[in-house]
């Protein structure tokens, strides 16, 4: 779970592009993230739109966030019961967003960068060959702050890079590093999610052990129409990965 309020502040330009309509042309979308809740924070609005358009979405979730530090407030779990709780929260979020195909890789939180890289790439490559998506959504490798985010994103783009060009899906990456604009320029894909903002809020809330406190604050800020908070429920931005 990450908070964007701090590091979004230097980016106040007008929204560069709105490409929500292009989503309707997708055939099948794979969302690939390491932790239950990454999907809601990064792409809940986009997923909800895809669901409205009748486009199937598969979520490949690598871990169950076993090493998360938040246990809920008041405390809902301990180190040993947390994985089951986070799995239930994830299933609730998937139901809200219309994700019917959830694949759990069963890896352990905070260990992805230490896995055998080739093994991880082939696991993802096999799933992508089976699912055959037209679009993959993940983090931008090297610009995702958490080592799990970066390791999984790297494996994802590498797995796609190894596919024959004619069946290679498009890859939308979310960059969250403070230097992302300097390094990557503006995001070339900005999805207007304002029509499904309620779904995004509900999905984020479903991950209650991680989000209960911040959602209270966020909802107050949205009610006050604070620009930083409004970004959460109005737009999701991605960089198309160039192979």
């Amino acid at each position, binding site marked *: 779970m*990450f*908070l964007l309020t*701090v*590091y979004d502040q230097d980016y106040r330009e007008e929204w560069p592009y709105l490409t929500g309509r292009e989503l309707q042309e997708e055939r099948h979308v794979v969302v690939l993230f390491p932790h239950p809740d990454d999907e809601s924070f990064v792409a809940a609005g986009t997923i909800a739109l895809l669901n409205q358009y009748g486009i199937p979405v598969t979520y490949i979730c690598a871990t169950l966030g*076993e*090493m998360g*530090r*938040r*246990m*809920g*407030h008041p*405390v809902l779990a*301990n*180190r*040993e019961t947390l*994985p089951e709780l986070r799995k239930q929260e994830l299933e609730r979020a998937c139901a809200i967003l219309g994700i019917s195909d959830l694949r759990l890789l*069963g890896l*352990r939180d*905070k260990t992805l960068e230490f896995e055998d890289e080739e093994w991880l790439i082939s696991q993802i490559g096999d799933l992508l060959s089976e699912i055959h998506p037209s679009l993959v959504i993940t983090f931008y490798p090297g610009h995702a*702050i*958490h*080592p*799990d985010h970066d390791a999984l994103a790297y494996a994802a783009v590498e797995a796609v890079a190894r596919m024959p060009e004619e069946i290679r899906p498009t890859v939308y990456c979310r960059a969250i590093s403070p230097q992302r604009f300097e390094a990557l320029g503006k995001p070339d894909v900005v999805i207007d999610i304002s029509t499904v903002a309620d779904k995004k809020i509900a999905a984020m809330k479903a991950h209650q052990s991680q989000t209960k*406190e911040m959602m209270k604050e966020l909802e107050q800020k949205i009610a006050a129409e604070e620009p930083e908070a409004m970004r959460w429920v109005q737009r999701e931005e991605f960089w198309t990965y160039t192979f």
Partner: protein
Amino acid sequence: MKPINADAVQSCLERLKGKELFLHLETTSGAYAAHHAGKPFVAGAFIRNGLIRYQHGKIKGSGPYRVGLKMDLGWVYAEGLTHFVIDQRGRLLLAGYDDSGNLTVALQLSEEPFDH
């Protein structure tokens, strides 16, 4: 989990003394600590299912608490412990939470391996 009851923890440490045990020991400042604090420093370590046996174990302090386990050839130690539970499987789970309710340290002992 509940705030630590030192007597309950101590008697559990007595019960587990001399047995072959699986250890989960963890400290963490969180993967986003550097990001939020703006400083390039994150510290943490964990071992899961390390196999240990201790001669004696003690809980000390008045909260947060410290636990030390003396082994034949060394020590296991954790500080900053605030909460505990002895779960249905008889496992002793100890954890420390900071002011915002985030886990900062965990020390757990079990007679059977921890899952995963």
